[in-house]
């Protein structure tokens, strides 16, 4: 009975294969070790930092293994949603500060209110702590913050005879940029859909992306203040060859700058590391200044970006997850992270860690005037659809600003209230 033997054999193989599949997930193996699954975002940590941190963590917590997966920002909202709804959620997830509110509200995250003391909750950056809270309970733990500055080429500035230190106002900025925008050089590479930068210009004018009245949010791009912000964006965008129909990720602006023609980009200071990585010839030729404001005494308003760490309610190892968060957001590693990645640490008392870093200094000057996107769960829907990007492209390609702004505001209003 050859066939029966064969069948029996294949069943055995199948059974073995199935049990092999299931073994990694029940991670508390015979040796008493637990694996904590972590999702971090692209550019959140460098390879070197990740290796160093993991090695140190596993040495200090011999019963815990760390498995880090790096996720892409594109489409991350849906991925996190799926993870929270599934049974096999990771134990720790990094979530962008504009997106954390909707997850905090969703009921899919572990309430960490009782742990805020041991996680040094008393001096967290408010731009990260507030979106992570919902109805008085803390779900998101601040991880790091960053805001955008101007990254510029010192050699090109010198050639054009421009003194970067003297640029304190918008006019001085556009004058200098126009002076740089000659021959093969682009004064500034500003893609048409960099809406965080537009938000800063709108805040400078006293406008906002959306406004709340009586508990309802509505888009506010059609206010005179917001229109002035867009007009300035258009003026600046014209001083280079940035594509009008894409954002800073398409193509990645750091790679554009690495090609050598762009004199300035607007980026987090960490972006400069990427430029040098792509083109080592630019090492030592990049420097920073805060985005200029309307007057010399206040720098431009900037969007405070950053991330929170959350623990899904469905996480298999919540206790180990908190241990992981405690280490990564603790003094030692926050200081190292801030230096390695040019980020703002998650607590105000750690700000001195990056005092010696020129990028961080420019960032700190801007952060004094830092702002956030509307703090409401509905905002994530606006970002997912992003009518602001369409609006910017429409205006930059010759559309009527007032008409386009009215349309975009209407779309923002609809997206923000889709859940009600």
């Amino acid at each position, binding site marked *: 009975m050859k066939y029966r033997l064969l069948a029996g054999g294949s069943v055995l193989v199948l059974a073995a294969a199935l049990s092999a599949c299931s073994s990694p997930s029940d991670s508390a193996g015979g040796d008493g070790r637990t694996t904590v699954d972590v999702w971090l975002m692209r550019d959140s940590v460098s390879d070197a930092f990740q290796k160093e941190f993991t090695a140190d963590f596993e040495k200090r917590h011999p019963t815990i293994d760390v498995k880090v997966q790096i996720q892409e920002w594109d489409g991350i909202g*849906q991925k996190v*949603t799926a993870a929270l*709804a599934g049974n096999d959620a990771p134990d720790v997830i990094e979530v962008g500060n504009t997106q954390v509110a909707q997850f905090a509200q969703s009921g899919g995250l572990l309430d960490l209110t009782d742990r805020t003391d041991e996680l040094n909750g008393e001096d967290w950056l408010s731009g990260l702590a507030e979106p992570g809270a919902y109805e008085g309970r803390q779900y998101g733990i601040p991880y790091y913050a960053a805001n955008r500055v101007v990254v510029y080429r010192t050699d090109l500035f010198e050639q054009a005879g421009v003194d970067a230190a003297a640029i304190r106002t918008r006019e001085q900025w556009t004058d200098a940029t126009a002076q740089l925008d000659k021959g093969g050089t682009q004064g500034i590479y500003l893609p048409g859909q960099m809406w965080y930068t537009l938000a800063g210009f709108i805040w400078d004018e006293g406008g906002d992306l959306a406004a709340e009245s009586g508990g309802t949010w509505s888009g506010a791009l059609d206010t005179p203040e917001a229109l002035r912000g867009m007009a300035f964006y258009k003026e600046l965008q014209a001083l280079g060859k940035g594509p*009008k*129909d894409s954002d800073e990720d398409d193509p990645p602006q750091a790679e554009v700058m690495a090609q050598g023609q762009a004199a300035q980009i607007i980026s987090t200071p960490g972006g400069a590391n990427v430029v040098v990585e792509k083109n080592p010839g630019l090492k030592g030729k990049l420097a920073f200044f805060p985005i200029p404001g309307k007057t010399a005494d206040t720098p431009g308003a900037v969007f405070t970006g950053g991330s929170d760490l959350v623990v899904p309610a469905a996480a298999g190892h919540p206790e180990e997850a908190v241990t992981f968060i405690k280490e990564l957001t603790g003094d030692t590693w926050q200081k190292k992270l801030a230096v390695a990645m040019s980020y703002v640490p998650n607590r105000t008392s750690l700000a001195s860690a990056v005092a010696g870093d020129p990028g961080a200094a420019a960032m700190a000057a801007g952060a004094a005037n830092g702002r956030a996107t509307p703090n409401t769960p509905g905002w994530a*829907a606006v970002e997912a659809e992003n009518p602001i990007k*369409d609006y910017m492209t429409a205006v930059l390609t010759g559309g009527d600003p007032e008409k386009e702004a009215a*349309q975009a505001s209407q779309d923002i209003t*609809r997206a923000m209230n*889709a859940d009600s």
Partner: protein
Amino acid sequence: MPVAEKRTAARAPRWRPDTRPTARPARPAGAGGRRASRLWPYALVAPAVGGMLYLLVYPLARAVLISLQDFRLRQLISGDAEFVGLRNYRTLLSDPRFWEVVQRTFLFMALNVFLIMVIATLVALMVERLRRIGRTVVLCSLVLAWAMPVVAATTVFQWLFHSEFGIVNQTLTSLGLTSFDRYPWFANGTASFVILVTLIVWQSVPFAAITLYSALTTVPLELYESARLDGAGAGRIFRSVTFPVLRPIFLLVLSLEVIWTFKAFVQIWVMTRGGPGDATTILPVYAVQTALSSQRYDLGSAASMITVVLMSGVLVLYFRQMFRQEDESR
């Protein structure tokens, strides 16, 4: 839904219902093994049927269920949702934006199907008249275009029309049309719509053309000959001979193309995500946007259900028309 599914239905089905009673061969019945042997076939198809039920019927039933519930991010995560009857359908049907999307969907479908049918017919007629080498070349190119994966083709089109590096802008500019220097095609609603129609027509013509061509080869040559002897021109021959003979195939291809363009999602999602504004948002895109961007899974499911109903409505109209014509021609 795999696109390949519809592509396998290349042969003309017979629409005449088979009214003869099926003759059952008398089966020699062994006394004991009778029941077992009768159950065997069912046991053998059970895994396939079970798999299909789980993969096709269960999601459909689940979508119907969700469309009747209050189902958002919170319910997705917690797992229990309240029934709200037809509230989601009421919300959708009273939303003017939804009706704009429905209108656009029909415009999109009509335009695509019309172009596909006309171009495919012309290509099929041309191939029939070509000599062997020409025919082989054209058929090979058709098959190659058809074999191109959807996402790959869409990406290629995206690059063709890229504002910065696209060959279309480069060509137009070098021809002296300087206004197309770095022209952002996808920032313009009408342009995006037209590009998508072009892409979908390009992707669909091969299947329709090959099917129509293979049907053309079955038309008896004597019919053409006698028509020509009677002094009929090319147009007349097509109207009076070719089209009537091929009508079942035409209708089949037409309904398949209606289905295919109605649910064209991948191309749009990859290329424009329904933008700019709502310019390329058709029903399937709207459903996904509503469900995933706004976390309104309930409204998204309701929109999908309405899509299914509308699409079936269109098809029922065609089938009724077809059966009527078949009856008349008997």
